[in-house]
């Protein structure tokens, strides 16, 4: 019974497909999975927008949306109807074709990333050998759509926003990749299902997730920083920078095209949280061995929503960085730490089992963090803001 509940979606798909003739079965199988992903994540997006608004409101001691439906839960429906019925304005001097394509490219590229994420036991659309590589290839193409949007709008704010976005996303893409490489070194595979399987075993009831090792913890923190920057979330929301750039690269978008950008941003957040979960938090595996009877997909989505909550929490807490601080932070602090973490991961691998590798790896990482943080704060590259002209 519990096994059936765990595999309920897989069994449901098999049962539906069994009504069809044999040659059609593989195609329909894939189509059903695609339909599930394409309908589930936008639904999650709708839910998240209202949770985010409620959460941010509570962080600021406000009530938040509570007019549409009980406790405002029907707010996303009202928002959806609004953006569908709004006039879609394309600037006269814009490059109409590229202007139209940009949001489509964004959403398609983001949806492609979900194809390789294992969302439960046996629940992965395409179990590729190089799934991680495929994911990063798709993630990199979202930058293209951002630049398409900024360039084709022919608006200085859009272009500035797009330039910032590309500079930021390329810088943090490096960090994102290098922090994930440690996991690949340990698991010995680029396949995301194999990475989950490598973490899905327990000793004394506790799981062997990579976050519970020194290099994994450091890697996870750096991955989280890079993921926040990659999805243009606060405090790294310079590409939108509503106080400086109107709305950045989507200034000239209205109606449903804007809604698509909005959707794309949230989907990117889901997929990057899903990847982080898979790489460092054990994917769909349970946090304790006595909880393994709970279906694997529940664990995956719980971890996903927990990461989304952290995203919202960060957004409600931190002010936006300045462009130079953003770049300094990426290239002078996070990247060297990432490279050091690669070395530490290698040490961990070759020091063998025992407490020695825990001590050595922890000391190296914490020492480097303390020393670099102290040094950079002294040189004012990162850390408290200095006001040269205002004082």
């Amino acid at each position: 019974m519990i096994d059936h509940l765990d595999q309920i979606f897989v069994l449901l798909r098999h049962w539906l497909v069994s009504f069809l003739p044999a040659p059609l079965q593989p195609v329909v199988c894939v189509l059903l999975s695609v339909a599930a992903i394409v309908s589930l994540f936008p639904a999650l997006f709708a839910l998240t927008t209202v949770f985010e608004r409620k959460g941010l409101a509570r962080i600021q001691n406000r009530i938040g949306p509570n007019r549409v439906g009980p406790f405002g839960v029907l707010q996303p429906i009202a928002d959806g109807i609004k953006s569908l019925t709004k006039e879609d304005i394309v600037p006269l001097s814009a490059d109409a074709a590229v202007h139209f394509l940009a949001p489509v490219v964004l959403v398609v590229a983001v949806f492609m990333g979900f194809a390789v994420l294992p969302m439960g036991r046996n629940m992965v659309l395409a179990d590729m050998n190089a799934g991680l590589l495929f994911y990063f290839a798709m993630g990199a193409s979202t930058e293209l759509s951002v630049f398409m949007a900024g360039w084709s709008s022919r608006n200085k704010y859009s272009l500035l926003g797009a330039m910032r976005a590309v500079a930021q996303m390329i810088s943090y893409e490096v960090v994102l990749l290098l922090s994930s490489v440690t996991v690949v070194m340990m698991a010995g595979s680029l396949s995301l299902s194999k990475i989950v399987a490598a973490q899905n075993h327990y000793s004394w009831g506790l799981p062997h997730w990579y976050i519970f090792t020194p290099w994994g913890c450091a890697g996870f923190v750096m991955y989280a920083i890079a993921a926040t920057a990659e999805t243009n979330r606060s405090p790294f929301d310079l590409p939108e920078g509503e106080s400086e750039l109107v709305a950045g690269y989507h200034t000239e978008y209205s109606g449903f095209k804007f809604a698509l950008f909005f959707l794309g941003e949230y989907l990117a957040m889901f997929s990057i949280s899903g990847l982080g979960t898979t790489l460092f938090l054990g994917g769909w595996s349970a946090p304790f061995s006595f909880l393994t009877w709970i279906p694997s997909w529940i664990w995956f989505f719980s971890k996903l929503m927990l990461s989304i909550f952290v995203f919202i929490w960060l957004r409600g807490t931190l002010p936006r960085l300045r462009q130079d601080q953003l770049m300094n932070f990426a290239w002078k602090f996070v990247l060297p730490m990432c490279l050091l973490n690669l070395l530490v991961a290698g040490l961990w691998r070759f020091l063998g089992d025992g407490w020695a590798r825990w001590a050595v790896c922890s000391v190296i990482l914490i020492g480097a963090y303390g020393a670099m943080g102290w040094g950079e704060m002294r040189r004012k590259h990162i850390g408290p803001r200095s006001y040269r002209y205002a004082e």
Partner: protein
Amino acid sequence: MLGEGILKGLAETARNFFGSYFSAERLTTVEYPEQRIAPFEAARVFPFLVYDGADWQSGLRCVACQICEKECPPKCIVIVKSTDKKPDALGKPQFYPARFEIDISVCMSCQICVEVCPFEAIKMNTEFELSTTDRFSGLLLDRKQLAKSNEYYHQIHPTEATAVDARLAADKIKADAKAKAAAVAVAAQAAAIAGEGA
């Protein structure tokens, strides 16, 4: 230590997040159409005309002196003086406004009309729910819409209205005394003339 401030900030927002569910004084929001707070006594929105007694037409304190019309910076007041006179609160025959209109789409709530009025006839209202579907005639308030009783004035600005009433009563006593003195003088003069004649 690097990152200390971020942790402090996260703790603060977490305290707000959970605290707002438990302590009522954190949530200061008044959910307006259902919940209301009484307007402050010093609040002011647009001017209105005060009348004494029960009948708004005969009780208007305004004597159509047109000072407010001239002083109004955005020129939102239109007054047409009457041709006949009627007795005012002090019993003196005065003109009255045949038309008195304020365009509240132009009015900037500066209260200058209130400051310059020598007759305490125009005061500031606290009514703010004035939206209308007709932005031209709907926002042009005439004499009848502007007239509000002195009791209403007491209700919205109690302290100020009491002071105004005291001032008006003092003026009335002074005017009565003056009138009596004048009457006595006239009577004496008449008596003197009569005496001379005799």
